């Protein structure tokens, strides 16, 4: 059983710094997702854990063993690649058992291990085929099988689902989750799909330009993003950022926004009393109020105790099935609201919306950091 520790990992190519001191601590059996835009250094970090890239500075440890200079084959890791990297000249069975063969496992045990894995992934019938005779999803399974068969301490996945179509991706996502539960192994998973990250991870590390922006559980990342980058990256549709002026009210503070209602801009005060952030020194200045679409919904029915409601014009509606997204105009900018389908069908025009300010995030407009 193994924990994974990354201490101040730096990667430089010449004088280009691709990773700028990454610190991540993983407990045994944890599922970590590295999430970030293309080119932020996710694969580089994963390859450093695998031993396919050297570590410029810092330390990587599995258990309490520093593995910086340990050969990939001796790190007790397995990796699933985006392109699957199946050996085209070998049958599926050979592909799966190659790693065991290289480690000198006798043929009989190898065959048994392959059978076991094949059964686990429901691909017994494919063992004699060549990779070119498989569908994308089947190749994916073989790649998983190749990783599973050695029972490594740490599994590494580099965007393993990005070559699959939407439906298969969902299936395999569930499959990976199930495998993680069953094996209880430590896993590191790279993706730029935020939904994959939210559904799979025990913890998510958000990377940007080689730096970890936030490391936390999916709930922490979703509900309490540390800055506007993280807030904008996670969630679909993304969080609304509303620029507002802080004003004093009888009960405390509020954020003043102009809401278009019945064709004219109306001043609305969004109550900041439910916020942990201290805004007393920001009166008269701008802050950014971050509201997820689901925090703006139809008034009435399910509005919570501390929700405030006011009318707002609906510009466009987009039905997504269970919910309908309404585009509103606040401060002259578009704001997304999420409304139960029944409502928006009735009204296109002006409607009363409830805003749950306890779920809002406040950001500093200059530093873009969370105010808490």
């Amino acid at each position, binding site marked *: 059983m193994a924990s994974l520790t990354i201490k101040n990992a730096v990667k430089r190519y010449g004088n280009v710094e691709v990773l700028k001191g990454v610190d991540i601590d993983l407990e045994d059996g944890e599922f970590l997702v590295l999430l970030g835009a293309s080119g932020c250094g996710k694969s580089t970090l994963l*390859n450093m854990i*695998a*031993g*396919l890239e050297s570590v410029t500075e810092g330390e990587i440890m599995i258990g309490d063993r520093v593995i910086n200079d340990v050969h*990939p*084959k001796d790190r007790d*890791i*397995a*990796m699933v*690649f*985006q*392109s*699957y*990297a*199946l*050996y*085209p*000249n070998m049958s599926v069975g050979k592909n799966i058992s*190659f*790693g065991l063969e*290289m*480690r000198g496992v006798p043929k009989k045990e190898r065959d048994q291990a392959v059978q076991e894995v094949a059964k686990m992934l429901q691909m017994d019938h494919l063992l004699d085929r*060549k*990779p*070119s005779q*498989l569908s994308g999803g089947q*190749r994916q399974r073989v790649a998983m099988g*190749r990783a599973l068969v050695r029972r490594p301490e740490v599994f590494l996945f580099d965007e393993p689902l990005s070559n699959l179509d939407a439906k298969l991706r969902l299936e395999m996502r569930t499959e990976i989750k199930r495998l993680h539960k069953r094996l209880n192994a430590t896993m590191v998973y790279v993706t730029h799909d935020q939904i994959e990250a939210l559904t799979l991870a025990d913890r998510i590390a958000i990377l940007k330009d080689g730096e970890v922006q936030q490391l936390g559980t999916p709930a922490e990342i979703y509900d309490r993003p540390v800055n506007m980058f993280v807030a904008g990256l996670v969630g679909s549709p993304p969080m609304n950022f509303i620029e507002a002026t802080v004003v004093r009210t009888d009960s405390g503070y509020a954020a003043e926004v102009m809401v278009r209602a019945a064709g004219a801009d109306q001043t609305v005060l969004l109550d900041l009393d439910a916020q942990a952030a201290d805004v007393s020194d920001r009166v008269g200045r701008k802050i950014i109020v971050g509201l997820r679409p689901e925090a703006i919904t139809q008034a009435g029915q399910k509005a919570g105790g501390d929700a405030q409601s006011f009318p707002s014009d609906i510009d466009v509606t987009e039905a997504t099935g269970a919910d309908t997204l309404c585009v509103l105009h606040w401060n002259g900018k578009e704001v997304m609201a999420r409304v139960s389908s029944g409502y928006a069908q009735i009204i296109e025009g002006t409607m009363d919306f409830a805003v749950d300010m306890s779920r809002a995030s406040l950001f500093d407009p200059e530093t873009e950091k969370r105010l808490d």
Partner: protein
Amino acid sequence: MSDHTYSPAQGQSVLWMRLLLWALLILFAIWFLLPAYVVVGTSLKDLEEIRGGSLLALPHELNFSAWKHAWNEACIGVRCTGLEPYFWNSVFMALPAVFISTLLGALTGYALTKFQFRGANMIFALILFGCFVPFQVVILPMAQTLGRLGITNTVYGLILVHSVYGLAFTTLFFRNYYVTIPDELVRAATIDGAGFFTIFRRIILPLSPPIIVVSVIWQFTQIWNDFLFGASFTTGGAQPITVAMNNLVNTTTGVKQYNVDMAAALITAAPTLFVYIVAGRYFVRGLTAGSVKG
């Protein structure tokens, strides 16, 4: 064509164009095949017939005596052994040289693409430069090298020369083929615990047949057909067949035996012809072959 419909006039002109095209093609085919026909025809005639008949006349009968003479009776210089010993010289020179240069080219190409080290591209550029070095430039230094190694005038010397000279080309072939094989394959095998040579043998080589065919054909024809190195570094009994054939044609004892000369030329060209006929279509396929699926 059958699903197109033409008006009668259109059909007429299309037909004429077609006939013209065919006529031209046949004309050129004859033009190019004529010398080959003359060579084969002459090699099957005896001297009487050659003197008596026209160059283009068909031989009266299939008379292989000129072939037999060229193979093991004709005099080359002072030795009247025919081409046979020289043929085997060429075989024993070409086969190892082709094998060595192809294997080394594959290894170099593999190292240059899949184990990118500092300056790999620089080294490749230098190797590539070797393709543009004309034979004549390396003759002198090569002669000195062979002298120092004590293998002047031996088949081993020629094997070495051709292996070294061919390396630039074979490296180019394999390097360009291997860049299309995804690096992730090597990375996966590394994690699986395979080393440099195991990956080469178990993963890379099994993907290489198309380019191996290209390399083998290219190297074999180059080495078999080489005259300059053979003439420069060997004399007498150690000469390859190309040099021996030249000497055979130049050794005249009395009457010029055109039929023997032609047979000798055909014997000399036979192996490369054979290779092209057997493997020629794989040559183009290999040159255009891309990477692997899956």
